[in-house]
């Protein structure tokens, strides 16, 4: 950054460095071509220059005239023949927008000529709306008579030093703030320290009129005052006199933007519709001419004043049509004109819409839906989409016939092609008319843009892209209907569900990009999360339930087993034991690699009370498959597989395990209902006893409290102690009912299976259905809100019993009493609000963290460094462990030794 300040958007930027350099470049290039074709153009011939500084400033009237190629004197646009008028707003010296015409300045045609500025001489100076504030500050801070800053001579040096010091410490921001505070201190001075003349108070009558003692200062006067300020005083206002003089902020000449910046549109009726800027400029030129005429004719002062104000209005709205105090200039239809500021500003403006917001070709977006029959790395693409997106294939001798087939099918038949690109780069769309001709024309070197087909590489993405796993590479599978289909297992890395989520698909167009996508972004490369070193993809829902049921002790005939395995894509049955009745564990084992060993823990205990999972030599000897082995973010079996057999094989095996689970479950049948949670009478009584006792305990505590005999916890008041104790009792009671439910519940119902395998829901959900919902808490406390000293009018004031403070004694199955339901609704609403408010906040927080650390990188010497190679950590994570290659962040040395043996 340069040490210069002063920014103002649409003023001229000086990029002296660039232009000569580019000229040189093109010159050299053309010379070289002239010399001889065989000299190849290499990067060495470029001249590289470093941009050392960039200066923003305000253009002076001389500058405006110098850079202008035309003086505009008439608001007329075209003559009778429709040819642009000389000296009009569409003057062809400012560039051309009509095909066939040549620019008078540079001689090039439409699209070649980038346009040139023009200028108009304003009859009277006007204030530039965007500089009103600066002008105001400068006027207030200088003497009206002698033009010096209102700072005594001896203090100027002191202030300057101070400013430089502030800039050294806090940069330009700090300097600007310091200038602001100095300027505000100048407001109160009413005697010039230089010439001792009295200073009047200057106010701003918005938007553009300066007042002194209730009297208007005309722009002419303002300008002459600004002219008087010596260069050396300008530093106190943060202005650099080499690029900004304050009097330039009062316009005497105005630059006219080139016509290429405000092209007119020819309507179907042949009528021309001019750009908003042209309209506005027309107004300015017209009023300016009238003002000139009136001044020359010696019209009365009032008329001139009126016209001057009108000119000021038009110039102001030309720069900014949304000034608060001015009515915006409008079209005849009543819609406000879009002038320069509106073009730049806001979401639809040039910066956020055109510069920051990029759009891509070869992409598609629709709703997603699940398809468990797809492979993990596939994405189902609707045929309609596949026929719009294309892949360029270069014609060679060997694939010519193959590619001609696509051209023959054309645009409207499925594996067809949309375009053909000739070697000279001309693109031709395949239509019924051109088809036959193109077919004959095709020869090696041509490119055929064929439709998307099965196996093509695609990038698939869901916003917000917080992860590297939010955008992964999939293989295309063209399917009927209109949604993208994905295997439900890959929902997790994308954080997707199917309640209407949409996702984006991008088709890489070059060989390089495809290779990059395949090697860096394919699903299997993203399997192990760098965050916790476990698989982000695993079995979910039905698949876990299915594998759990299968391995828990189900058996089937060999025929059934063969057909099940064949269904999931296994045709080698040699590993299936040759006996009539085959155990589920044996079926599962067929998928595992033959030399695979694994020991783990399952979520629940089996009949013998063991929770070990033992796999030896690719056979599941003991234990069941559940979330702890197969689940996403949990599956230790998956990590083990990945460690031994690598990513591709793991994905393959995982896909088969997933399919086995779902296929088995569909064959086996699965259902869940509220009657799954029916308890035997004995259990019901136990639950009742637990809750009764808890309520009694609570009541006893309350009695003790009222008698003042309650023993307080250290540092707590008695009522706080009571609350804590009650909460503890009630929570314990609910947990106890949970234990009872777990003990008596039938293990073979759908609900229990889901809870035990970890595929959905847990013991808590079962207990809430079967026995007791439990205490409803807000901010860690029982519900106390509502009426005076009570939660609802059903209770007495000061009632502290469990039921009056949000303890839901009943289970969902039995049904809630009205007030219990109401308490549930209170906490439900509260948590809903909480999540709705917290999500965007934490999202933004995360975004800031991600942006702040985005280019930090682990170097080869294990240090973590940022983009300027500054050290952040001397050893990555203090221990230098890559989490994705460790077990919970720890390197298991024993296992490594075991593996070597």
């Amino acid at each position, binding site marked *: 950054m340069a040490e210069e300040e002063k920014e103002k958007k649409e003023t001229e930027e000086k990029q002296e460095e660039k232009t000569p350099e580019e000229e040189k470049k093109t010159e050299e290039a053309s010379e070289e071509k002239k010399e001889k074709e065989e000299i190849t153009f290499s990067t060495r011939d470029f001249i590289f220059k470093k941009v050392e500084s960039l200066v923003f400033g305000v253009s002076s009237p001389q500058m405006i005239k110098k850079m202008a190629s035309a003086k505009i004197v008439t608001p007329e646009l075209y003559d009778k023949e429709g040819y642009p008028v000389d000296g009009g707003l569409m003057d062809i010296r400012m560039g051309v927008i009509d095909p066939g015409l040549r620019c008078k300045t540079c001689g090039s045609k439409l699209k070649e000529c980038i346009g040139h500025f023009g200028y108009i001489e304003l009859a009277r100076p006007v204030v530039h709306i965007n500089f009103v504030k600066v002008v105001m500050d400068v006027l207030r801070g200088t003497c009206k008579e002698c033009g010096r800053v209102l700072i005594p001579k001896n203090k100027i040096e002191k202030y300057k030093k101070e400013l430089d010091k502030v800039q050294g410490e806090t940069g330009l921001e700090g300097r600007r703030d310091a200038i602001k505070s100095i300027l505000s201190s100048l407001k109160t001075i009413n005697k010039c320290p230089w010439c001792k003349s009295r200073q009047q108070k200057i106010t701003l009558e918005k938007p553009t009129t300066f007042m002194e003692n209730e009297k208007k200062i005309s722009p002419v006067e303002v300008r002459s005052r600004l002219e008087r300020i010596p260069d050396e005083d300008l530093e106190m206002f943060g202005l650099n006199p080499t690029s900004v003089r304050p009097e330039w902020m009062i316009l005497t000449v105005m630059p006219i933007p080139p016509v290429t910046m405000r092209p007119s549109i020819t309507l179907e009726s042949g009528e021309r519709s001019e750009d908003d800027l042209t309209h506005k400029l027309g107004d300015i030129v017209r009023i300016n001419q009238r003002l000139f005429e009136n001044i020359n004719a010696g019209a009365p002062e009032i008329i001139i004043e009126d016209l001057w104000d009108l000119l000021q209005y038009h110039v102001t709205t030309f720069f900014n049509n949304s000034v608060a105090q001015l009515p915006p200039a409008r079209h005849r239809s009543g819609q406000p004109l879009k002038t320069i500021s509106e073009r730049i500003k806001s979401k639809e403006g040039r910066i956020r819409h055109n510069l920051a917001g990029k759009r891509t070709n070869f992409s598609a977006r629709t709703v997603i839906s699940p398809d468990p029959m797809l492979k993990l790395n596939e994405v189902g693409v609707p045929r309609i989409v596949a026929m719009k997106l294309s892949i360029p294939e270069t014609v060679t001798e060997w694939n010519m016939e193959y590619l001609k087939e696509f051209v023959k099918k054309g645009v409207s038949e499925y594996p067809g092609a949309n375009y053909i690109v000739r070697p000279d780069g001309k693109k031709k769309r395949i239509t019924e008319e051109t088809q036959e001709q193109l077919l004959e024309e095709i020869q090696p070197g041509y490119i055929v843009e064929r439709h998307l087909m099965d196996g093509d590489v695609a990038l698939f993405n869901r916003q917000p892209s917080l992860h590297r796993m939010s955008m992964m590479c999939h293989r295309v599978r063209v399917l009927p209907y209109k949604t993208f289909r994905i295997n439900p297992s890959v929902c997790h890395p994308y954080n997707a569900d199917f309640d209407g989520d949409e996702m984006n698909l991008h088709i890489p167009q070059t060989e390089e990009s495809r290779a990059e996508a395949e090697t860096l972004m394919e699903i299997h490369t993203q399997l192990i999360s760098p965050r916790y070193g476990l698989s982000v993809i695993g079995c979910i829902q039905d698949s876990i339930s299915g594998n759990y049921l299968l391995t828990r002790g189900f058996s089937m005939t060999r025929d059934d087993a063969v057909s099940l395995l064949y269904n999931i894509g296994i045709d080698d049955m040699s590993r299936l034991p040759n006996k009539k009745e085959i155990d589920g564990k044996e079926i599962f084992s067929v998928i595992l690699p033959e030399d695979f060993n694994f020991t783990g823990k399952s979520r629940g205990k089996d009949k013998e009370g063991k929770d070990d999972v033992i796999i030896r030599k690719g056979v599941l000897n003991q234990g069941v498959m559940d979330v702890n082995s197969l689940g996403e973010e949990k599956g230790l079996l998956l990590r083990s597989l990945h460690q031994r057999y690598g990513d591709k094989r793991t994905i393959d095996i995982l896909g088969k395990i997933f399919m086995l689970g779902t296929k088995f479950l569909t064959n086996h049948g699965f259902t869940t209902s509220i009657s799954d949670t029916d308890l035997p009478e004995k259990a019901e009584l136990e639950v009742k006893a637990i809750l009764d006792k808890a309520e009694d305990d609570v009541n006893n505590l309350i009695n003790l409290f009222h008698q003042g005999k309650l023993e307080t916890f250290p540092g707590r008041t008695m009522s706080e102690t009571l609350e804590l104790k009650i909460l503890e009792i009630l929570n314990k009671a609910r947990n106890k009912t949970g234990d009872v439910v777990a003990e008596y519940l039938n293990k073979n119902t759908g609900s229990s299976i889901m809870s035990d395998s970890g595929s959905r829901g847990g013991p808590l959900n079962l207990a809430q259905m079967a026995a007791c919902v439990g205490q409803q808490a807000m901010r860690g406390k029982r519900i106390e809100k509502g009426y005076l000293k009570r939660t609802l009018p059903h209770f007495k004031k000061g009632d502290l019993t469990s039921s009056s403070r949000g303890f839901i004694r009943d289970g969902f199955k039995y049904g809630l009493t009205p007030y219990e339901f109401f308490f549930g609704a209170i906490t439900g609403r509260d948590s809903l609000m909480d999540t709705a408010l917290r999500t965007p906040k934490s999202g933004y927080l995360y975004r800031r963290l991600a942006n702040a650390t985005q280019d930090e990188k682990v170097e080869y*010497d294990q240090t973590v*460094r940022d983009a300027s*190679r*500054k*050290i952040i950590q*001397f*050893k990555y994570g*203090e*221990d230098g462990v890559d989490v994705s290659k460790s077990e919970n962040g720890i390197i298991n040395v024993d296992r490594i030794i075991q593996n070597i043996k």
Partner: protein
Amino acid sequence: MAKRKRKNIVDVKNHVLIPKHKKLSEKDKKELFEKYNITLKELPKIPLDDPALADIDAKEGDVIKITRESLTTGKSIFYRGVISG
């Protein structure tokens, strides 16, 4: 800015949460810079008036070695370059 060798109201040196600070000798400093191929600019910073440097005779441009107790590694070593307050 704060004066050098300011009297600390609380002696922070012996607090359990303050890790051990030690000044590197010129030789060690040179070795460190060579090891990581850096200059003082690339090091994390510590201001001269940091309370932890109260009894260390450090000046601008010195390197402070900080030995911390870490949950992940037991002991971790960190270096900071001294800058003026």
